[in-house]
């Protein structure tokens, strides 16, 4: 299929949902109730054409005077007077008479055609706005002629090849009061302005776009300081880059639970839990860790003021004030009900753009449910997540849930978040204690353990819980269990010590015994030695005596006496 040529409007978001802009050289009908922003859309279409696409434009106004129009959009930063002077814009205010004009026969709208044709030719206009042509129905009584003339007008606009925006006020059960939608068949955009639970939301829908694909949803839009912006609920594509860089959560054991060092940079974290489970504290600790690395953190608080948060966190040893003073931490505190969801989104994105933080905290997103339905909030958060991911900002959302029913928004944003940390209180033994676990964490070998979550003077600490026959033990039951284990251990140690002492004693006694035996042995050896030496002396003496006696008696020869003496000695 050949691509339909389109004229970009330059209006933020509108070109995305229309797939490139309005049909080029054809009229587009923009309709809706009073005050829905038709005129502004039309005017911005012209202004953007002039400033961004170098396409001069003609604004034919049936309602407001040129001066009013110039003044009305000046607050949005559009300098129409300048564009007029530069010959890029013609504002033709058609002053409608108060009542019907007397019709005295056949007539046509050649005057209007000539006016428009002249204006278009004078500046070489590529864009034309007619706001609101249905006012003609108040001035002419011959509807048949008027309708045929309008049909001719739209045909004429196509012939001239100008891209036109025709506005029309919503009628009773019809798109426009006088049914002009039947003449403008190429593209119809419907604007709406709804108030739900005291909060107004503007919405835009492409009802029809002949020959082109277009978004069919209702898209919220805002009229902000710089004009209109349409916020596509679903971003055109998921094309975010993925970082493998980890950011510490500020809690060492939680970092360990997440596998290897904390959240991924640019990921989205949901911390969800019942009241008083320490969600904000976890968020504050994360901010603290972010600032400690020298990066900026932006904290959106919907329930507490800056001073309250800083004070409350200082009670658990987290000094946020130093980071605020250092310009690393910024708080934006407001009640959700002051603005509609889209306005909040817009404001928050603006703050993020201005401050350029590495981390953003929204505490708690469940408060947004007060100003919108679960589907609206989840749509808004989807856009917020997409926005932050595109910027590589790590986001931490807290969400308050009740035990009875998990908040609708949680279920709907669950698929958006990369890491989901659950905080709970566990009741037992007449007390309730906080526990934490990681419900999911994409791309991380995260722990499956439940940890007890302690708020100490030094911030958050995580402790092991005891899993026994009675279930998970926390709080004082855990402490009792720890004490029990400690005392068991002590008893074992004492037993061992006793054994060691016994052994030592035994060794001493063995040594003493050995020493006694040695002494006995040595005594005996001594005696024997002495005996031996005595014995040899005696033999010599006796042999000597016998030889002496023999000599004296002359009984034997000397040889024999010597022999006797040797024998004696050898016998011994």
């Amino acid at each position, binding site marked *: 299929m050949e691509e339909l040529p389109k004229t970009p409007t330059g209006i933020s978001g509108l070109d995305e949902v229309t797939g490139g802009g309005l049909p080029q050289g054809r009229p587009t009908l923009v309709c809706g109730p009073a005050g829905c922003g038709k005129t502004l859309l039309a005017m911005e279409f012209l202004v953007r054409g002039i400033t961004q696409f170098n396409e001069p434009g003609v604004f034919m106004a049936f309602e407001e005077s040129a001066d009013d129009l110039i003044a009305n959009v000046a607050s949005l930063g559009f300098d129409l007077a300048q564009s007029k002077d530069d010959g890029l814009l013609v504002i*033709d205010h*058609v*002053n409608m*008479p*108060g*009542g019907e*004009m*007397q*019709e*005295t*026969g*056949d*007539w*046509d*709208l*050649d*005057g*209007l055609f*000539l*006016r428009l*044709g*002249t*204006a278009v030719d004078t500046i070489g206009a590529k864009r034309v706005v007619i706001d609101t042509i249905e006012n*003609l129905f108040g*001035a*002419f009584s011959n509807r048949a002629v008027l309708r045929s003339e309008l049909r001719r007008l739209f045909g004429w606009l196509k012939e001239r090849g100008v891209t036109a925006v025709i506005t029309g006020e919503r009628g009773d059960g019809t798109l426009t009061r006088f049914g002009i939608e039947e003449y403008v068949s190429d593209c119809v955009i419907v604007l709406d302005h709804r108030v739900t639970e005291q909060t107004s939301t503007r919405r835009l829908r492409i009802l029809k776009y002949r020959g082109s694909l277009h978004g069919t949803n209702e898209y919220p839009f805002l009229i902000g300081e710089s004009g209109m912006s349409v916020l596509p609920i679903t971003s055109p594509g998921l094309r975010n880059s993925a970082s493998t860089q980890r950011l510490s959560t500020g809690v060492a054991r939680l970092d360990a639970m997440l596998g290897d060092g904390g959240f991924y940079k640019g990921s989205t974290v949901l911390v969800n839990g019942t009241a008083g489970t320490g969600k904000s504290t976890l968020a504050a600790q994360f901010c603290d860790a972010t600032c400690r690395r020298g990066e900026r953190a932006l904290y959106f608080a919907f329930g507490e003021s800056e001073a309250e948060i800083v004070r409350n966190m200082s009670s658990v040893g987290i000094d946020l004030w130093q980071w605020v003073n250092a310009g690393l931490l910024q708080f934006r505190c407001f009640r959700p009900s002051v603005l509609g969801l889209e306005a909040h989104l817009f404001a928050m994105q603006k703050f993020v753009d201005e401050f350029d933080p590495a981390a953003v905290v929204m505490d708690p997103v469940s408060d947004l449910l007060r100003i919108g339905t679960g589907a609206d909030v989840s749509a808004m958060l989807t856009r917020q997540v997409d926005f932050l991911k595109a910027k590589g900002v790590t986001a931490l959302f807290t969400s308050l849930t009740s035990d009875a029913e998990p908040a609708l928004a949680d279920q709907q944003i669950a698929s958006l978040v990369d890491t989901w940390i659950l905080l709970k209180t566990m009741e037992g033994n007449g007390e309730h204690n906080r526990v934490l676990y990681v419900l999911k964490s994409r791309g991380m070998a995260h722990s499956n353990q439940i940890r007890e979550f302690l708020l100490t003077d030094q911030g958050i600490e995580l402790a092991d819980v005891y899993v026994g026959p009675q279930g998970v033990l926390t709080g004082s039951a855990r402490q009792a269990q720890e004490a029990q284990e400690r005392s068991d251990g002590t008893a074992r140690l004492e037993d061992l010590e006793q054994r060691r002492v016994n052994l030592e004693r035994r060794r001493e006694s063995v040594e003493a015994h050995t020493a006694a035996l040695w002494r006995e042995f040595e005594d005996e050896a001594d005696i024997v030695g002495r005996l031996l030496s005595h014995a040899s002396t005696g033999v010599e003496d006796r042999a000597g005596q016998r030889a002496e006696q023999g000599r004296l008696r002359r009984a034997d020869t000397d040889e024999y006496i010597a022999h006797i003496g040797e024998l004696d000695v050898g016998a011994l």
Partner: protein
Amino acid sequence: MNAVNEPAVVAATAHETWHLRLYVAGQSPKSLHALVNLKSLCEKHLAGRYEIEIIDLVENPSLARTDDILAIPTLVRRLPVPLRKIIGDLSDTERVLVGLQIHPDCLS
């Protein structure tokens, strides 16, 4: 148009010169009809007391904007005041008289 200050207008019609301006677009049948109808009507009701100015918007297109003209033909009663506008080829004489507030009874 609304009938405002009618007695004053009627009073004025008797002795003032009528200044009428007819806006046309080229030589279209509607324009020519309007001119013919206007002339015969003026001769009949305002003889000697009228002045007709014809403006061809094809020649002077910028006047359409300055004089706030949408429909063709448009007849504007510039004098006597207040300014009045009627549209069409002026074939419906009744409506022309009502639109210009020419009262046949009060005239001649």
